[in-house]
């Protein structure tokens, strides 16, 4: 899931100030904490209030999309409203905002959120945690399933650095665990310090360079549907 944070209402208002009719689109996809129809409505009310305070009238409608990052789903859900509104405010992550801008070339879609990281939900500790940084070259087999690219503040491949104290990281004021000490401890538990001792050569950052592209393999797509889209 993608962890997002709602922007300050003033910042969102600044973006939509030039418009008087806006569509607010929630997302029911993986965006967390949830940003669905209710959140879209609340944002609409707040923006309406803010506009009133500034002596303006704002017309808005709230909808939600199953997954804004899927062109077909986002396209079919939003298209019925597109002509009625001057701009869209998206409550998805950056993927959704970008997708709506690409599908609806004649309408600007603005982000209501800051996208933070891809995360796993850790219910035990009531936390969202970034376990993976989608780096294109999985190291988890050497690091007891703890990713140093995502979880070490410096992304070191041969840690720990000199900044760890009693297993805590220098970044963030020794509040968060040092990933490399976690790796060390877990490998030790399995008697696999051979993996810890291994030297990992410089990483190929081409694998992580944006923009990322991966063409869908033919067999995985529905050929007939594809033709229809082309028409």
């Amino acid at each position, binding site marked *: 899931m993608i962890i997002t944070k709602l922007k300050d209402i003033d910042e969102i208002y600044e973006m939509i100030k030039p418009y008087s009719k806006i569509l607010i689109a929630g997302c029911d996809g993986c965006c967390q904490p949830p940003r669905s129809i209710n959140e879209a409505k609340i944002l609409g009310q707040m923006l309406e209030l803010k506009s009133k305070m500034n002596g303006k009238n704002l017309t808005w409608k709230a909808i939600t999309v199953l997954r804004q990052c899927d062109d077909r789903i986002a396209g079919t859900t939003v298209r019925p409203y597109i002509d009625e509104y001057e701009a869209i405010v998206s409550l998805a992550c950056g993927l959704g905002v970008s997708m709506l801008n690409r599908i609806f070339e004649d309408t600007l879609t603005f982000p209501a959120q800051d996208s933070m990281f891809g995360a796993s939900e850790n219910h035990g500790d009531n936390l969202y945690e970034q376990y993976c940084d989608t780096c294109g070259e999985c190291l988890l087999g050497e690091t007891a399933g703890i990713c140093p690219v995502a979880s070490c*503040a*410096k992304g070191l491949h*041969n840690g720990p650095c*000199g*900044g760890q104290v009693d*297993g805590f990281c220098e*970044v963030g004021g020794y509040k968060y665990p040092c990933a490399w000490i976690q790796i060390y401890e877990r490998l030790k538990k399995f008697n696999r310090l051979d993996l810890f001792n291994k*030297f990992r050569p410089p990483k190929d950052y081409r694998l992580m360079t944006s923009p990322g592209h991966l063409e869908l393999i033919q067999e995985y797509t529905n050929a007939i549907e594809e033709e229809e889209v082309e028409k």
Partner: protein
Amino acid sequence: MGNRPAFSNLMKEIKTGKFLFTGELEPTKMVDISEIIHSAEAMKEYVVAANVTDGPQGMAYVNSLIPSYLVQEKVGLETVYQMTVRDRNRIALFGDILAAACVGIKNVLALTGDHSALGDNPGAKPVFDLDSTQFVYLLSKMIDENTDVYGNEIETGKVEMNVAIAANPNASPREAEILKVGRKVAVGADYIQTQTAFDIDDAKDFIKELSRYNCPILLGLFPLKNYGIASYFDKYIPGVSVPKDLLKSLKSAKKSIKDKKERNKKVDEINLEFFVPFIREIKKSTPAAGIHCMAVHYERLFEPLLKDFR
């Protein structure tokens, strides 16, 4: 690498087996580096070489290469060019090492570097393209094979440098630190300079454990110029605690002696009382090659501190 030649005077001295000392210079936000030159002059007689720090604590300071070069040129004191991987990718590291070799730098200390978020430009994009072990690997490629990490050849001249790495005697769990150092030595370090130690038994144990790698060790010591520095160190340098007695005597010197000269004399005495026996013990009962003495802005201590060891 083991069989890499001794290119630097420091490495040559280490190989003679004589117990030796290195010093430390810390250039900051400066264009006029005469202060660094003066410090280098003041310690020249006592140390074989001096480290030149590279933006410690993530701070934006003058690039350490130029002071490293100028100290060698103007003072005739060999330097250990400290380089962190925090601010440069492999292209910049390669380029800077070539530049350092061009101007006759013979020692490089390969460091990770404190995270930029800790410094005074906290929003800077941290690099960490290589980690310090991979940097040692790059250095080995450059020095031993005359190429970069991809095998592209250096066209003219040779990089003749010895490679230092850091180790932290205060690290816990210690085994992780020892193994990490071993990983780095295997990739091509020539000698180890440790962070500061204050506990003699700990330091001895640490040296003993590291000695399995057969890589010369310079133990880091940090004489305390005044109570302020000592308590800052104790409070804010993570993992380091200054012995209580030492703190107490420095504090009482600060409180009870008003005359600056007298107070300095007392502070020097306190330091000598602590560090002379410390060094003597390290020299006598460990295989350490010497002491890396981080008496930054405290050069006056070199003479009384080291006179018995020269």
